């Protein structure tokens, strides 16, 4: 056996690949089955959104924020609208804030359901995908009733939301919550506590909390590493300070704190908390207007602001510099997946190749956000 020539193999997990969530290219150097180095290359979906923002009015940029993270469009819409409103000092009516929160949480559930489906798919199971997408159809029906679109909504406007909820939305939303809560238990039986799933997911891709903070990893990935940090609780925006919910933190019930199983279970728990938030918001929502009048040519006084929001993937930040005209001077979008992908090269060292695919899935990034 000592006469065998061994050398490292360079594998290109190319931009077109069913397991990278989008057009991500990972150059992997493997020694047999074990990965020695993995470098992600991004930029395949770079559309120059920040440059486009400098040409358009504030209101005109709203549809572009949908396409930033198409699985969580409402959250991106909310982020951009709230940043512009903060800089322009526009007050949003309370009913609009509640509608925004309900939409954002519904979108969080939808996004985590896609994560649930694709996690199962990467481990080799087809059923979670079908179940996850079936539940997601309920949510998408609710959205289609409201704004007419299934994936990229363009529902929020600067100053509120574009129009009021249709009749029957509240009953249907409550029906969805009642239907969905027992389903979560069913999925836990199916996948979460499944011994094969646990054996595949536990103890791989362990991300310690210092590395996570240093690399800028935020959102469920950071909470799975044991850090209790949720912008909805710690730096609240919109009406989150009036709503009561818990922040799930990774405790290492199965495997270690910060491994892929923990990242998975955090998102399942977040779905449960989101249902709780939606119920409370539906009950607390007052009557009233849904949009403040904003002048057509919206000029914002010169200044800058950085606001951050809790997207399903992490902390999304908008840094807006204005020079007094009706177009943004500089809009920087700090996407959560940008930092989440940068930690792949650390996590994927010395793991098996099939585990690396699971780690990529558990970080739950999405490429349009990374590339903008």
């Amino acid at each position, binding site marked *: 056996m000592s006469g065998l020539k061994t050398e490292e193999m360079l594998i290109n997990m190319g931009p077109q690949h069913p397991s990278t969530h989008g057009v991500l290219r990972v150059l992997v150097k493997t020694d047999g089955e074990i990965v020695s180095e993995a470098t992600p290359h*991004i930029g395949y979906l770079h559309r120059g959104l920040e440059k486009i923002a400098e040409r358009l009015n504030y209101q005109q940029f709203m549809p572009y924020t949908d396409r930033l993270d198409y699985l969580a469009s409402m959250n991106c819409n909310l982020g951009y609208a709230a940043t512009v409103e903060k800089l322009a000092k526009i007050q949003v009516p309370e009913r609009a804030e509640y509608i925004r929160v309900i939409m954002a949480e519904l979108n969080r559930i939808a996004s985590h359901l896609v994560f649930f489906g694709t996690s199962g798919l990467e481990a080799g199971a087809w059923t979670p995908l079908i179940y996850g997408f079936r539940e997601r159809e309920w949510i998408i029906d609710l959205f289609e009733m409201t704004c007419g679109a299934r994936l990229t909504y363009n529902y929020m406007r600067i100053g509120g939301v574009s129009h009021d909820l249709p009749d029957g939305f509240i009953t249907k939303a409550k029906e969805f919550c009642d239907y969905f809560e027992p389903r979560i238990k069913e999925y836990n039986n199916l996948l979460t506590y499944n011994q094969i799933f646990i054996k595949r997911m536990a103890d791989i891709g362990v991300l310690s909390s210092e590395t996570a903070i240093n*690399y800028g990893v935020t959102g469920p990935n950071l909470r799975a590493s044991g*850090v209790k940090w949720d912008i909805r609780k710690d730096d609240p925006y919109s009406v989150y300070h009036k709503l009561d919910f818990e922040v799930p933190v990774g405790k290492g019930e199965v495997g270690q704190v910060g491994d892929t199983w923990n990242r998975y279970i955090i998102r399942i728990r977040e779905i449960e908390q989101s249902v709780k938030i939606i119920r409370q918001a539906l009950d607390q929502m007052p009557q009233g207007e849904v949009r403040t009048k904003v002048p057509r040519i919206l000029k914002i006084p010169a200044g800058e602001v950085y606001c951050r929001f809790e997207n399903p993937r992490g902390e999304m*930040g908008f840094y807006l510099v204005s020079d007094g005209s009706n177009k943004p001077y500089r809009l*920087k979008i700090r996407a959560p997946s940008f*930092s989440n992908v940068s930690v792949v090269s650390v996590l994927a060292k010395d793991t098996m190749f099939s585990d690396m695919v699971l780690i990529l899935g558990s970080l739950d990034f999405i490429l349009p956000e990374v590339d903008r």
Partner: protein
Amino acid sequence: VAPQDLLAVVATLKTAKELSFDALMCLSGVDYPNLPDGKVGNFGVVYHLFSMQHRHKLVLRVELPKDNPSVASVANIWQTANWFEREAYDLYGIKFDGHPNLTRILMPDDWEGHPMRKDYKYPETYRELPL
């Protein structure tokens, strides 16, 4: 903050107990406009820092001249800065000294020019294909 003092300031900010800014939220390049009194505008690099322990935020801004923009890299202090600095280099042309791998990250590797600059002209062809 002046560019040459950046490293010293940043090291104190991270380690001092009352400050302990251990998270870099965002790092962006900005192309400031020309001032009305005729001075040419600068590039700026804006750092948004946050402390997880004390929960306070800080914004640092470094202004760099347009003809040779270069500043020390903070990638060794906050690893998030690694990719953010690559993006600022790619889109603005700001060089970060001491960065382990300063290559283009979003644009194709053989692209010429720095797109986010205000005086950027859209190229006509790329590798002899018309754009």
